[in-house]
């Protein structure tokens, strides 16, 4: 496997050298270079549209099996009964109206040397450059007892949609006094503050509707995103209701039993009324098929162009990428997509890509009127995306409730803005 990949890399260098001339030829003949984007989420949708804006001569095909996209940000509000799933859903009508060809199917294989993507029906789509934005896949089996059947009893709700609604229905059906358990995974995973926002909004629901209930977060880590802000807010808003159990206090879940709704740790067993298991993850399946995922299951990339460090001509953006200091968030995915589109537009015309600067801003709701954020500015440094020194950080630890309320309003505005840019 390793030798194969190394040999393949050598061939890849040759492919890059010849590919530099290839788009030039098609341009000279008046034909457009084709860029194929796989995955229509925040990363892929943004990239497809940004490519058309960068250079309308580029023909863009977006490969996406779903007719409707269901957004993960704010899906914790759906679980907490504060929002309907329909507010999370977007079609690709406006994307198509930009002149982007949409292949409503799955990409199953990539031939990096021939530069083509194979679709589920066997069609091969040739590309000058390929952008993979496959998001995450669950590592089924990584947590003993947690497979696809178990997810029907102990939802992960980490890809928004039916799973989101299932968890919400389970909470609604739970009697007052029940124990809700969230199992949070080790790093890295999609949306680092997500499990803690979810705990907050479930606690908000329980406090209002089922106040004798309790929520425990069993964590495979000893630290998490925005931790001090979350914990201060929990002490203020949900005292006695929400308990966080870190790795060092026995939080690591080592197996689950879907039949009995039990979660096993090194320190004991927890029998839940509702169990939300957020399992270990990896880059979406096509990353592996294309050979762009490494042994970690994620995809190493060049920090300026998002081109794979393993396979030339393929770029990886969004949650699937190893983006250094950038977290796996929708904002980061959108920022990466626009950077990648600019680089790809230059590369297909034979121009050198410029050095980018990227931003992430990520809001979490601790309650509907209580928002907190983390922000960062990133630039390539030492072959990775590194945080610009002195920039970024989380909301202030001491702040009036009016600041928290303002950040909750900014959070909702961010969702409207980014979804309008990607799908509107």
């Amino acid at each position: 496997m390793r030798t194969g990949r190394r040999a393949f890399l050598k061939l890849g260098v040759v492919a890059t050298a010849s590919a530099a001339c290839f788009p030039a030829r098609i341009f000279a003949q008046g034909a457009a270079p084709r860029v194929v984007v796989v995955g229509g989420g925040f990363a892929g949708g943004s990239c497809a549209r940004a490519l058309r804006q960068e250079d309308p001569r580029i023909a863009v095909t977006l490969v996406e099996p779903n007719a409707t996209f269901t957004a993960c940000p704010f899906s914790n509000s759906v679980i907490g009964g504060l929002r309907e799933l329909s507010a999370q859903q977007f079609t690709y009508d406006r994307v198509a109206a930009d002149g982007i060809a949409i292949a409503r199917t799955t990409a199953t294989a990539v031939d990096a040397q021939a530069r083509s993507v194979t679709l589920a029906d066997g069609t091969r789509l040739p590309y000058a450059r390929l952008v993979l934005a496959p998001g995450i896949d669950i590592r089924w089996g990584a947590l003993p007892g947690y497979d696809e059947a178990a997810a029907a009893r102990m939802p992960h709700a980490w890809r928004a949609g039916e799973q989101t609604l299932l968890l919400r229905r389970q909470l609604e059906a739970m009697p007052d006094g029940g124990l809700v358990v969230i199992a949070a995974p080790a790093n890295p995973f999609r949306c680092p503050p997500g499990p803690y926002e979810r705990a907050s909004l479930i606690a908000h629901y329980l406090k209002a509707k089922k106040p004798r209930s309790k929520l425990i977060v069993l964590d495979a880590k000893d630290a998490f995103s925005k931790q001090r802000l979350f914990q201060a807010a929990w002490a203020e808003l949900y005292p006695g209701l929400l308990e966080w159990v870190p790795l060092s206090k026995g939080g690591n879940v080592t197996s689950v039993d879907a039949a009995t709704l039990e979660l096993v740790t090194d320190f004991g067993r927890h029998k839940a009324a509702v169990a939300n298991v957020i399992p270990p993850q990896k880059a979406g399946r096509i990353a592996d098929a294309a050979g762009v995922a490494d042994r970690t299951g994620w995809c190493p990339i060049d920090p300026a162009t998002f081109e794979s460090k393993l396979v030339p001509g393929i770029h990886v953006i969004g949650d699937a990428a190893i983006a250094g200091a950038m977290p796996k968030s929708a904002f980061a995915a959108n920022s990466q997509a626009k950077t990648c589109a600019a680089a790809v537009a230059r590369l297909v015309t034979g121009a050198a890509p410029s050095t980018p600067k990227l931003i992430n801003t990520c809001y979490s709701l601790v309650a509907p009127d209580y928002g907190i954020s983390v922000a960062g500015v990133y630039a390539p440094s030492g072959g990775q995306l590194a945080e610009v020194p002195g920039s970024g950080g989380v909301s202030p630890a001491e702040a009036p409730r009016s600041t928290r309320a303002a950040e909750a309003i900014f959070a909702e505005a961010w969702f409207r803005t980014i979804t309008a840019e990607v799908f509107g």
Partner: protein
Amino acid sequence: MRSALAAAIGLASIAAAVAASAEPPAGAAACSGCHPASARVSSPVPRLAGLDRAAIAKAMQDFRSGQRPATVMDRIAKGFTDEEIQAIAAWYATQR
């Protein structure tokens, strides 16, 4: 028409033209994650396209120095140099 022209002037000139076109400077494309690109989006966060160049630059500098209160822009402005701020301000001022 456009492709015929492209064929005539050749690839090198196209690349030069692309490089010289109003491509967003480093960091500028990321702003529209929060600052709406479209006027149809309702948001308390202002659109940047077409704003006064000096006003954008001053806002960024004041966020960076802490002179202007902010929830998140103070943390973001600290990631940009004076030159980058000027380039971003100049670019947004020309956008519509």
